[in-house]
């Protein structure tokens, strides 16, 4: 007798990975909690998180969009302004440091002298440079929109039941002095890059975990019942600012994030890890879910992830996505709309 004798089949490679089709593997046999339609589920994270946000409703779950478009704005315009892409208009939150400073700004722990980028006499929110296409007319407009947005973020973390966060990147650009981290490098989405003012950082395991723990602890203070689902984006870096080849830098980044997410879920009862990254990026998937650029995840891959998500978290599977009924044209259109500022790093 030895400890492995008592392990379930899922613990054995030959009984599962070697023996089953990739689409039949159960990546998440058990969860600490389930999701129900009554729960307010909020989402944030990198661009892959947008897929999660879009699909929750198809499982009968409630993607809680706390920041709603104003009356009189058409659905098309609302989409352009990124209403409903996530639960609030923070756009992509690629790094955990971004998440932390979002909470700090929202709860007044940082003075809201927010970063402003200017271009052709237009004003851009340095923390979400593409949230208002073409920028703001005035600095006062930017501040008014930001104040409303942060009030909604405050409400989100105070009231939501489950927060689904997708960790995306370790690399980021910061403003020297203040240490405020940008979502994308200044000069790509808006503004101009200033080497004296903008510095590169590649966050490491201890500080990422510390940031995530800080956010959890702070939010637990205002919303003790909030639970977390963390996942790691399987989408590689579009570009790296390190000296490594992008695939090496990407592997490092994802490995660190995967380790952080695993540790974070391991030590907290109210935190779950969901293996989006493994479903898409494992070598054993033979790259079947990658698009032609070997980076983007195909709609079929997203379907697989979300089918597993529903199977794991939704009682009764929650109306699992049926691939035969997938509207490819519609999904393609949706995929084409996924906002990913990180792509701007590769802009010529």
């Amino acid at each position, binding site marked *: 007798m030895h400890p492995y004798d008592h392990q379930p089949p899922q613990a054995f490679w030959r009984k599962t990975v070697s023996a089953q089709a990739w689409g039949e593997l159960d990546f998440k046999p058990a969860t600490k909690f389930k999701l129900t339609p009554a729960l307010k589920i909020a989402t944030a994270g990198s661009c892959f998180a947008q897929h999660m946000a879009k699909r929750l409703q198809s499982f009968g779950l409630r993607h809680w969009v706390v920041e709603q478009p*104003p009356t009189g*704005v058409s659905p098309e*315009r609302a989409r352009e302004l990124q209403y409903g892409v996530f639960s609030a208009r923070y756009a992509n939150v690629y790094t955990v440091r971004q998440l932390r400073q979002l909470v700090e700004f929202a709860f007044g722990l940082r003075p809201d002298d927010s970063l402003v980028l200017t271009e052709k006499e237009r004003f851009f929110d340095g923390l979400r440079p593409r949230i208002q296409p073409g920028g703001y*007319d005035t600095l*006062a407009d930017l501040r008014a929109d930001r*104040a409303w947005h942060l009030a909604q973020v405050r409400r989100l973390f105070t009231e939501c039941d489950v927060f689904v966060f997708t960790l995306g990147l370790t690399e980021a650009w910061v403003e020297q002095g203040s240490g405020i981290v940008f979502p994308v490098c200044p000069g790509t989405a808006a503004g101009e890059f200033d080497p004296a003012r903008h510095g590169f950082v590649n966050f490491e395991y201890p500080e990422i975990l510390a940031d995530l723990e800080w956010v959890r602890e702070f939010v637990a203070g205002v919303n003790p019942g909030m639970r977390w689902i963390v996942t790691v984006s399987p989408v590689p870096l579009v570009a790296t600012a390190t000296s490594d080849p992008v695939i090496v830098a990407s592997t490092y980044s994802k490995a660190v994030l995967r380790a952080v997410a695993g540790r974070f879920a391991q030590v907290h009862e109210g935190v779950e890890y969901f293996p989006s990254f493994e479903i898409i990026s494992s070598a054993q998937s033979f790259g079947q879910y990658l698009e032609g650029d070997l980076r983007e995840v195909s709609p079929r891959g997203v379907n697989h992830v979300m089918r597993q998500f529903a199977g794991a978290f939704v009682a009764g599977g929650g109306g699992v996505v049926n691939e035969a009924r997938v509207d490819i044209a519609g999904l393609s259109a949706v995929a084409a709309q996924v906002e990913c500022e990180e792509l701007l790093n590769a802009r010529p």
Partner: protein
Amino acid sequence: MNASTPRFSLIGSSHLFGVIDQYVGKLPDNGFQRAWDTGVPATGPLDLGGPPGWQGEFVLFNTPAAGPPPELRDGMLYLPEQLSRVLGSVSADSRCVFSLMRGHEYAVASLVDDPGHADFSDAHGQSLTGRRWMSRQDALGWVREFSEPIFTTVVALRQHLPQARIVQVPPPPPIESEAHILAHPESFGALFSAYGVKPFEMRLRLYRLMTADLAARLQPYGIASLPPPAGALTPAGGLHADFARGCLHGNHEYARVLGEQVKAYLNTLGVAHASV
């Protein structure tokens, strides 16, 4: 009425009530009720006390009786028969027609503090702190959505009377006094109880955006627009409560200053225009 005497007309619905109160009085033969019940406009002479050489008329109709608002699609105006009949009540020889038609769309969109509404900044001030924000561009899109029926209805009038000068008279600006509005809630009482009255600054911003945009869009059609009569306004630009009827309209005092505006406008035309 002498056929050679130039004529001007005021056409409208509820925004014409104050004018009738001030200058006409009770309509004969229960004319108001008849117009409301039958959908056939009430018409009659309108004496503003000038200007010399002009004779006036009013055309009062019930807005729903004029059918759905016209639609302008690909440069073609589509208007319902009912509206054609209403416009047909304006004397064909009228040389200048002042339109007080519609305007309730603005009231519906702006009076109640709907939590879905957002504020925006304009040349007169910044959006209110703590309010949902929208860009001026998006605000304009929203304003156009609800003011489109005013625009198309006045363009329909222009089309119906191509020889006449057409002047758009916007609805009165928002009443500044919230106390007055709450004391005269009309049919909005339950909504005010639930959501309150939209802050005056927001109502005024919407009004200014709507009237400026309407004036700019009507101008290429040769349609002039009057500003709100200065004598009825508070220093901030709202409607003074003493000039208000209910929570939306101008009263007979408002009509008096509006009448002065109409006369002043006609004076700028001169009788020469009237005889064209």
